[in-house]
């Protein structure tokens, strides 16, 4: 994870106090947790790596007509898929949990140091309406955001957030912006719109940018760095004074990333295209982490640099300050994709809109699960479809192979099965590899699947094939619902323990997680 380590605006946060804070608070936190998270991440990537290598090897071997070896590689790939399906959700949920803790502990503290008095919400985002009003992104894009910082610099209220605007709904890549968006009330009354874009860019074809024409300004340095569009060339020069142009050039040079700005009737918007998410969790410690934290601090300090360079605190014009407008603008936020699930005590690790459930599902008892309560204990037994599939697959395979070819010839109505049995015999070894891989995959998933869970005051037991696993209450940090699974975060590990298989709905996971937590704590239900 590389941050914008080259961002060093003038007046960047003093390094010595920041370094002392890093050594005192962040380094121990990362040293304690980052190693475990990094190992978890690597473990999660191993099967992905094996899958990719197996796929490439299978393709290569097939091209050189080594079909047996290609099928063997394909079999290895099939096994990897099974491992990914079982362990992937656990690693993703663990990573999401660490992300939440990192932002609440490290990033929030950093914001308090760099922008004192500002609030930081990792799970709130700049409202989509504000992003569209800036005119700096296409309006036909999917939008996501988080890491909202709101505060006042001097006398200027502002908001700053991580914004991602991606593919359009029609699947065509129109605009790919991933960076920070800053907006504040502009200190002068404007009647039109002025757009300052990185050199060579054209305005987005959106309604707010209609009627803008290119404007050539006097500063060669500014013209080399930016392209300016405005509804009124005189007003563009009213906004972009020689001093402002000079400051914008210096700011863009310091930031080292594409910088755009928009000035309309009410507000000023500044977009910094970072190319990646800001303030993301670090899974390592040491000097590399220090460099990234410095980058985060510099990104936050960009807010101060923008207010200073655009002289937003200078209020010598008739507009003055408009607290009502600022209060309205500050209220224009929306929950990030993370916020709804964290508010409900769950961590979502997929934001796939095709999933058959959503974070808004209400708790409901899971289907195909037998729930029993006795003396404060809760026991849930889950139906096992994989066992049935395994048995059917085994039976079918045995049946096809066992019958004599003469019997198939005597029953022409079953010609297709006879053909399959004959084909299996003809290429018995390669077909067996694939079938063996499928069987092993199903076996692995069946073996790993949680068959039952029992919760009692002071402990939880999880049953799979083999010995059940016992978790004492003091080891369990939290029981939560992640998509349609119930998991438990345990001490000394960021890899959660699955307490249920996939239940088919987030509401079922919520219900069961609440029941298990209540039984664990001994609370009456």
């Amino acid at each position, binding site marked *: 994870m590389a941050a914008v380590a080259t961002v060093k605006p003038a007046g960047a946060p003093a390094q010595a106090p920041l370094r002392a804070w890093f050594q005192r608070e962040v380094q121990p936190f990362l040293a304690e947790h980052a190693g475990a998270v990094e190992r978890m991440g690597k473990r999660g990537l191993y099967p992905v790596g094996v899958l990719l290598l197996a796929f490439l090897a299978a393709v290569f071997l097939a091209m050189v007509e080594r079909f047996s070896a290609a099928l063997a590689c394909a079999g290895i790939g099939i096994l990897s898929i099974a491992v990914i399906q079982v362990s992937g959700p656990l690693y993703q949920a663990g990573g999401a949990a660490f992300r939440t803790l990192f932002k609440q502990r490290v990033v929030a503290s950093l914001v308090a140091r760099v922008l004192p008095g500002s609030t930081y919400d990792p799970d709130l985002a700049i409202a989509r309406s504000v992003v569209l009003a800036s005119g700096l992104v296409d309006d036909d894009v999917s939008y996501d955001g988080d890491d909202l910082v709101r505060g006042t610099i001097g006398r200027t209220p502002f908001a700053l957030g991580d914004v991602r605007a991606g593919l359009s709904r029609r699947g065509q890549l129109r605009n790919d912006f991933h960076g920070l968006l800053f907006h504040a009330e502009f200190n002068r*009354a404007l009647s039109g719109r002025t757009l300052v874009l990185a050199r060579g860019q054209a305005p987005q074809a959106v309604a707010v940018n209609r009627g803008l024409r290119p404007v050539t300004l006097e500063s060669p340095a500014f013209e080399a760095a930016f392209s300016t569009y405005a509804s009124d060339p005189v007003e563009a020069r*009213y906004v972009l004074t020689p001093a402002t142009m000079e400051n914008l050039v210096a700011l863009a040079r310091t930031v080292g990333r594409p910088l755009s700005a928009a000035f309309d009737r009410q507000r000023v918007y500044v977009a910094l295209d970072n190319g990646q998410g800001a303030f993301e969790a670090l899974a390592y410690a040491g000097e590399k982490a220090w460099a990234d934290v410095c980058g985060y601090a510099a990104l936050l300090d960009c807010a101060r640099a923008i207010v200073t360079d655009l002289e937003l605190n200078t209020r010598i014009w008739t507009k003055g300050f408009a607290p009502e407008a600022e209060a309205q603008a500050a209220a224009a936020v929306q929950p990030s994709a993370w916020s709804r699930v964290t508010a409900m005590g769950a961590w979502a690790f997929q934001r796939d809109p095709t999933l058959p459930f959503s974070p808004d599902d209400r708790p409901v008892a899971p289907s195909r699960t037998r729930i029993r309560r006795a003396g404060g204990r809760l026991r849930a037994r889950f139906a096992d479809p994989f066992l049935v599939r395994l048995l059917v697959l085994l039976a079918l395979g045995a049946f096809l192979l066992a019958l004599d070819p003469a019997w198939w010839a005597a029953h022409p109505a079953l010609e297709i099965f006879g053909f399959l049995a004959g084909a299996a015999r003809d290429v018995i070894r390669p077909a067996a590899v694939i079938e063996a891989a499928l069987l092993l995959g199903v076996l692995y998933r069946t073996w790993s699947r949680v068959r039952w869970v029992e919760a009692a005051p002071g402990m939880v037991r999880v049953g799979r094939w083999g010995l059940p696993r016992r978790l004492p209450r003091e080891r369990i940090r939290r029981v939560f619902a992640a998509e349609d699974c119930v998991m438990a975060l345990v001490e000394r590990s960021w890899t959660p323990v699955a307490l249920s298989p996939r239940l088919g709905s987030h509401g079922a996971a919520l219900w069961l997680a609440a029941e298990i937590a209540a039984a664990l704590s001994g609370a009456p239900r």
Partner: protein
Amino acid sequence: MPLAVAAASAALLLAVIVATYNRLVRLRNGTANAFGALDAQLRNRFDLIPNIVAAVSGYVQHERSLLESLTALRAQALAAGATAEKRVALDGQVAQALRQLVVAVEAYPDLKASQQFDHLQRTLVEVEAQIAAARRAYNAAVTELNNGVQSFPAALVAGPLGFSGKPVLETPEAERGRVDVSALLAR
């Protein structure tokens, strides 16, 4: 064949001349438009002067001559038959007089505290900034016109077609020097 070549060359030349003429017309109109925008902002400032005089005259007993000078400048600028060029020419004198007045007001705390005067002062600052922007826009338009008239091959046809360059608006020599704030405050 030679006749066809000659006719084609003549047609091409005519097309180039027409295109050049049209471009120069656009540039000249753009300059006129920018000058009109500047004139509008100057009028805004002249319109402020009666309000400023009314707000200030009850307080500043020793600046009567300054107020009278401002009023006279305004009358000259808005007199019947006064052209936009005349208003631009008076711009420097008006700006200097207003600056002197703003400095003089520093000696009158009651006036400085007046909400009405505060609003006028802010409006004046805004108008001054817009005048500066309009001047820059006008100079940019004039520069573009001058480039069009003086560059080759348009320079060959600009004169015969009645186009010529214009001077950019420059700051008067008296205003280019450093401002002696002490001298202003000592008046």
